[in-house]
């Protein structure tokens, strides 16, 4: 049976110290350098023991406070044979959010990457059809980034000092 120690060992053998591991709430989370995302995904896919061949989810997160690595792409992978899940995270700067596309490996990543592009502005290099998907085509910003507040920041009639963020 595939366990977390074994996955960590296999990945460390292959990629050395460039990747790091966490286990929040028992969910193995791997952080890799952005340039290696495809290599890690390919290794996880091809390896006879790991077999992470199901892409559950792909999404983005914006951390404006992490200077130089503001944007993150999060992959959720699933090994359906041994029923183990894994999360892969990569970080890129918001000034140059270039990420290699996973569509060659997982055709289902197509729309997920389009959605992530649509909301965060990642440039998925090699994506066959990188267009907006849910928002209007003529939109010129990426709304899920934290600088776009949900409420008008000019509002003065509401005092959030005591309660709220």
């Amino acid at each position: 049976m595939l366990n977390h120690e074994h996955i960590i060992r296999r990945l460390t053998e292959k990629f050395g110290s460039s990747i790091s591991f966490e286990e929040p709430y028992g969910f193995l989370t791997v952080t890799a350098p952005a340039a290696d995302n495809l290599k890690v995904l390919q290794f996880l896919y091809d390896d006879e023991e790991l077999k992470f061949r199901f892409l559950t989810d792909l999404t983005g997160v914006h951390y404006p406070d992490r200077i130089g690595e503001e944007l993150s792409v999060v992959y959720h992978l699933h090994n359906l044979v041994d029923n183990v899940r894994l999360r892969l995270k990569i970080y890129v700067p918001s000034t140059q959010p270039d990420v290699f596309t996973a569509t060659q490996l997982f055709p289902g990543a197509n729309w997920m990457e389009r959605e992530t592009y649509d909301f965060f502005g990642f440039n998925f290099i090699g994506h066959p059809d990188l267009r907006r998907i849910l928002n209007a085509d003529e939109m010129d910003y990426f709304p899920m980034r934290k600088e776009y507040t949900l409420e008008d920041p000019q509002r003065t009639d509401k005092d959030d000092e005591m309660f709220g963020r």
Partner: protein
Amino acid sequence: MADNNIKSMLPETSETTNGRHHIKLSEDSLAKQTTTLNLGPTHPATHGVFQNILEVDGERILRTDPTIGYIHRAFEKIAERRPYYQVTPLTDRLNYCSAAINNIGWHLTVEKLVGIQTPKRVDYLRVIIMELARIADHLVCNSVIGVDTGALTGFTYVFQYREKIYDIWEEVCGSRLTTNIGRFGGFERNFNQAAWDKLDDFMRTFPRAFEEFQILLDRNRIFMERCMGAGPITAEKALSYSVTGPNLRAAGVDYDVRVANPYSSYEDFDFKIPVGTTGDVYDRYMVRNTEIWESYSIIQQAIEKIKDLDPSIYHADVPEFYLPEKKDVYTKMESLIYHFKIVMGETNILPGEVYHAVEGGNGELGYYLISDGGRSPYRLHFRRPCFIYYQIYPEIIKGGLLSDAVVTLSSLNVIAGELDA
């Protein structure tokens, strides 16, 4: 009509001599052998807001270009501004055919984040609600496949039972379609006698009606001819496109979140995961039908199991997160304090990162939640099964007939709310 207006409507290559217009079509227009057809955004056959621009050769579909996002409501962004308990009504509006599963899935996610253990009775009550939602969802899908193939009768047989499910929900939470059912830690109130009576009535009368529905369609030659071989998905393709739920199982892969990662005590129940072989419309229809029977059996088991448990328990004892009953808020100091803290978003939710998945009506419904310790989620992402598997649609209808495309769409059970979030 003014002369200029007519001119503006003619192709640019047209000429006008002595006040007469000579229409000249562009060079390639006569050579074009195919027709471009716009299906949607609102079309009675699509049951929702879907636009597909089809390139057809006669009745055969050559190419499809789907446009989505017509009812995008930015739930992920809105959730970043709301306290946790106010996100529940947003989840209602994802897959509105089985809103209760979405609500409970969200509650389970937050319970995982803050570490709430729910009592067994709460788990079983939730299982009853979720399986009723699954039945309602599958009933809509399957009866609508019937409607799209021209068999309206089956629809009228079973839709009454969807109403009965809504009646049960109404007793439990007060609303029918967008349920907003439950709270973190359990339910807002215990099931009353009327709810149990209505559930009992449903359990008594539903099998006969559903059997009748199956007699109408399952072995109906016309229905079979329309459905078999239409829009097939192979297991390999389904997996590579991250398809989940009944559509994946119809292709022959026995993946079900209820079994793979049991939540809400699903491990206590005995049920089967039906699988198909070819992944065509008929297989998807049959898988959903079988799942309805399995859900029915799960509800029966849950009703039996609940009889041995303390009937007064309907929520976990977590005053910090569980919104107290209104009458306690007015009479008890402690409840008033907790009510105030929860409503003002002052509960202590620690930073963390969780992914929780439930088996929704259409597949793996996942919640990826990042908390930074604030009053609302730092980031919340819904893994919406519809959104992910709808991208396979252009591929599976290619080369098929236009009428097959319509049944294929209804058999995939794409729900616009979940598609567009």
